[in-house]
């Protein structure tokens, strides 16, 4: 942190009072934004009655029931039948039996979560790769009609994606891409690539051409120069772009609910369906959501340095 805020922007060093007020505002804002997160994590370890009690309970006995319900499907049985079973094999087994139910099998949560991982990371990888190449081309070569092309690329973001959902739905059905991971990867890539091109063009414009020229004179082809000299310097921009793309693809709901229903379904359309299985099971929904948040959280924390530098758009380069 200290190295990032020593330079340029503020000419006058802020007074301690100003700093304290600024700090208070930031902390307050952080608390406000963290309330929903805290709510989700707390709900995921509440029992179903606790989760719907009003006023909401701050103090309660934590339970893993929500997670058990998230990971399993259960069937209701008579107490006599449950009595006749051998001793429970685990915590979830025990909790389920106390509700007069037995575990019938695993739920679809992990497969759906896996779909989300494959589709979100796959499309992010594709969007960032294509975006980097396109951005490099726009940045370095005299592309005919470059401005128009860039505007066209940007214009794909000018309407809500859902506006084109019906044509895409029909197209996907025709091509057999409905409910396939490949279909979703292509779709999210198409949406994200415009963002990637624009963000990355800004970053690559900032890298002086002399580096590539030096590498080409040092005996490398343009592609090698791009790979060995431009890419290592564009990592900040690439990381920032990747996070933005990933967040979109990971959270996307509208297309997912329309285009996936079975084997390629992602977690966002799956999580609400948990409610339906045996009453309003908010702890299970909250548990599903909590786990769903983890990958983005980890990814963002891992890349937070790049993201911080990336948001300033290369202003702090050297």
């Amino acid at each position, binding site marked *: 942190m200290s190295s990032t805020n020593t330079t340029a922007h503020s000419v006058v060093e802020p007074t301690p009072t100003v700093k304290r007020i600024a700090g208070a505002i930031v902390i307050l804002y952080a608390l406000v934004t963290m309330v929903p997160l805290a709510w989700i994590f707390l709900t995921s370890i509440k029992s179903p009655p606790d989760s719907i009690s009003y006023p909401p309970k701050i103090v309660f006995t934590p339970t893993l029931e929500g997670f058990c319900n998230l990971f399993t499907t259960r069937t209701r049985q008579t107490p006599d039948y449950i009595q006749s079973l051998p001793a429970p094999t685990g915590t979830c087994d025990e909790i389920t039996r106390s509700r007069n139910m037995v575990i019938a099998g695993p739920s679809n949560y992990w497969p759906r979560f896996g779909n989300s991982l494959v589709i979100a990371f796959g499309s992010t990888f594709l969007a960032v790769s294509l975006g980097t190449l396109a951005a490099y081309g726009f940045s370095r070569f005299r592309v005919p009609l470059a401005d128009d092309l860039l505007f066209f690329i940007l214009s794909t973001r000018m309407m809500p994606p859902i506006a084109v959902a019906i044509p895409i739905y029909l197209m996907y059905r025709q091509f057999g891409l409905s409910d396939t991971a490949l279909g979703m990867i292509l779709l999210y890539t198409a949406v994200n690539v415009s963002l990637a091109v624009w963000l990355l063009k800004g970053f690559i414009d900032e890298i*002086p051409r002399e580096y590539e020229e030096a590498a080409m*004179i*040092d*005996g490398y082809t343009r592609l090698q120069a791009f790979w060995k000299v431009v890419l290592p*310097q564009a990592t900040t921009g690439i990381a920032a772009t990747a996070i933005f793309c990933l967040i979109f693809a990971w959270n996307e709901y509208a297309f997912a609910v329309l285009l996936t229903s079975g084997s390629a379904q992602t977690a966002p359309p799956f999580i609400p369906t948990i409610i339906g299985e045996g009453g309003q099971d908010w702890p299970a929904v909250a548990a599903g959501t909590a786990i769903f948040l983890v990958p983005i959280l980890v990814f963002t924390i891992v890349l937070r340095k790049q993201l911080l530098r990336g948001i300033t758009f290369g202003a702090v380069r050297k």
Partner: protein
Amino acid sequence: MSEIKIVNLRKQFGDFVAVEDSSFTVEDGEFLALLGPSGCGKTTTLRMIAGLELPTSGKIYLDGEDVTFNRASARDIAFVFQLFALYPHMNVFRNIGFPLLSQGVAKAEIRARVEETAKLLRIDHILGRSVSGLAGGDRQRVALGRAIVRRPKCFLMDEPLGTLDAEFREVMVHELRELHNRIHATTVYVTHDQHEAMAMADKIAVMNHGVIEQYGTPQEIYNRPASMYVADFIGSPPMNFMRFNSGLKRGTRSIFLDGVEVAVPEMGEDVAPGEMALGVRPEHIRFSDRSPIRGAVYGSEYLGTNQIVAVETAAGIVKARVSADRSFRLGETVGLEFSSAKLAVFDCASGRAIASSPNAETRHG
């Protein structure tokens, strides 16, 4: 090492002509400075030799081989950039070794050659350092190291001292020339600084508006400028121009400046009447009370070993470099005398120097 030959090289960016039909040859082991103000086409010329820019027309030969449209990577040349372009994600060692890596040189040999190069440039103690923390001079040496490690056919340098502070620049000028004396690499050096060019180069090409105004040794450029532009660009203060209206006959040995006869070198050609200029270097002016060319002292600039005295004459302000012993009052009337053999005469309309006995062999670019 090798010879660089440029034939009728031309470069146009849209309607703008950056380099106009230039031809010159840099001989094996020679140090050529391309000298000119910014925007004169010197860097574009250099980039075409490097292969970073393709010419609109013309040919480039390296060692007799036509490389006009070869890739930069296939030319076996080294380039030192103005801002050095050291790869920021590599340390000093890897920066210098990078060109060798592309040639598939074995690791042990890369190490040996990088260390040898570093020793030559006296940077062997910073091989492990990151380039981003280096001082200007060390960055400069690393950039040079990356250029010489490969032992290329020739070196191209684009204002490599431009970003260094004045004091250090002088040190690097000596170091560069010393390096050149040791490895005798054919070098093309782009600069806008006449001192750098004069101090280092074997030959200088003075460029202006995409045209090579004069190509020659520093002595030729300084003593026999081929045009008013060159005469004005080289020298500090630059050559004085004293204007007069006249025609000239071949064999003439004097001109009339405001009615006063001034002896000049023997003119080598006939010139139709028109505006002419007598070119006088400040150090070729003496003060003499007997001289009929009179003027009033306008100002003086003390330089320690000598002084520059500006004198207002009928033909304009003339600056003279004279001994620092004598002091002048402002407005004092003085007489000026010129060293006749060193004078040049120019045609103001075209700006070119009139052929005369000492500069008869001056080559026009």
